[in-house]
């Protein structure tokens, strides 16, 4: 690999990219506007591509280059484009409504990060990759995306939280195991794409029925 890439510097760059991912997740958690949310999601995908490409360069695992390319195509270009078009056609530009206010959500997010770091400590010690320290961050981002999903009351931010969760799982796979086998990754990518398409169709159905994409309309089926 490259001469000036000492092991220490490699580790630091990977740590920096992981920290950037964590920061982006918090930014998504605190974000109020839908358009910025989609752009942050695209930025998250981009940082993910960078980190995968960097690991590919530093460790020589060629299939990670394909992985990075797939991430770029799907999560930085295609999915945000689909989401933007969906927003335009649904004519949705409102502010994200949250169930808790933003500072409280951030506090919960911090607690989840601490939990994730603790949980991941014994596991990351056993991984065999150079990126094992970032497994805690990967798990933290998974939990933060989950928090984002359950504290939002509109449909589109919930979906973006779901996609962010997929992003973080992909990052966890890269951090712990240098990525899953290509066939599995292709399958996952296909699932994500089909999922978003189905959700797009679904949003129109919801909108048609309720004239709004507020999730609280969808809470009538309670236990009798």
């Amino acid at each position: 690999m490259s001469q000036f890439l000492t092991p220490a510097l490699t580790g630091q760059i990977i740590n920096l990219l992981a920290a950037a991912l964590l920061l982006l997740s918090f930014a998504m958690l605190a974000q109020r506007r839908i358009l910025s949310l989609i752009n942050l999601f695209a930025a998250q995908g981009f940082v993910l591509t960078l980190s995968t490409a960097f690991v590919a360069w530093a460790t020589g695992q060629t299939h990670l280059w394909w992985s990075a390319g797939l991430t770029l195509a799907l999560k930085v270009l295609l999915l945000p484009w689909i989401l933007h078009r969906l927003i335009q056609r649904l004519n949705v530009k409102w502010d994200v409504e949250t169930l808790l206010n933003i500072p409280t959500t951030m506090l919960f997010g911090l607690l989840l990060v601490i939990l994730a770091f603790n949980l991941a400590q014994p596991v990351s010690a056993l991984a065999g990759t150079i990126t094992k320290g970032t497994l805690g961050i990967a798990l933290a981002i998974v939990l933060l995306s989950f928090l984002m999903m359950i504290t939002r009351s509109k449909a589109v931010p919930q979906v973006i939280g779901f996609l962010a969760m997929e992003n973080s799982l992909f990052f966890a796979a890269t951090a712990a195991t240098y990525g899953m086998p290509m066939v599995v990754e292709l399958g996952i990518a296909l699932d994500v794409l089909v999922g978003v398409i189905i959700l797009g169709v679904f949003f129109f159905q919801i909108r048609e029925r309720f004239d709004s994409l507020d999730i609280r309309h969808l809470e009538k089926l309670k236990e009798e």
Partner: protein
Amino acid sequence: MLSEFSWAGASAQLTEILLAVLLAPLLLGWVNQCRAWLQNRSGPGVLRPYLTLRKLMAKDAVVAHGASPLFRTAPYIVFGCMVLAAAIVPTLGTDLPYAPAADAIALVGILALARVFISLAAMDIGTAFGTLGARREMMIGFLAEPALLIVLFTASLISQSTSLATTVETLSQRELAIYPSLAFAGVAFTMVSLAENARIPIDNPATHLELTMIHEAMVLEYSGRHLALIEWAASLKLFVYSCIGIALFFPFGIAQGGDAAGLLLALPALAFKLAIGGFLLALIETVSAKMRIFRAPEFLGTAFMLAVLALLIHALLET
């Protein structure tokens, strides 16, 4: 502490204090001038704060009837605290006589002391504006102080000591390394400084509208030399915060030993860094809009969260 009293050391320390006191208004003037340039105005000139101070000193100090001794002495106490803070932050060198007292927690305590006194003085007269300003100041302080502490703790964890001098030494001696935790801490620190120094986006230093005043509301009753001291203290506070930021995040150039040559070389480095910092501050103020007052807790909450994140990332990735 002062086990080896040397004239050289003492005079160096005194020089540093005098430099801070004298240069602080210049920094404020520079920030205002940059803001004017960015807003396409011709600006008041970098020496305007000095002229303001001279004007205020020459005027009589008008004090309300119901004012207590606290009201009169508060400006001096606040000024004294700021001078003390400027003395212990390692602006030029790390080996000066006061360096052992440069504890991060003590520093935060001194700043808090100043805040308490000015808030009390604001409420002393009993006007509505004073109380309003004091309450808002306390809210900002209550949220900003933990964030500041955690930023300092993150730096302390890296250097294994809460002494600012040791921190500066450790950080300036490491090889070029990318610390994500310091990046997060830097952003958090910037946000906290903006809040504590009453800059946009938390507070507009040029406004007198009731809806938007915080710092200005507290000093509304002061005039003459009292007001001069308070304005001077405010500019010193900005100076101190900038120097803390430089010490933690850009400590290159600060003299390690106590020799005069190192200190003399540290001066232009400091001036350069402060100039850039002032310009960046003016830039941030120009591109941001002032936030509504009830968004301020969110802003500071974000700063706190970033600071805690910096701590966590340091614990996870860098040990």
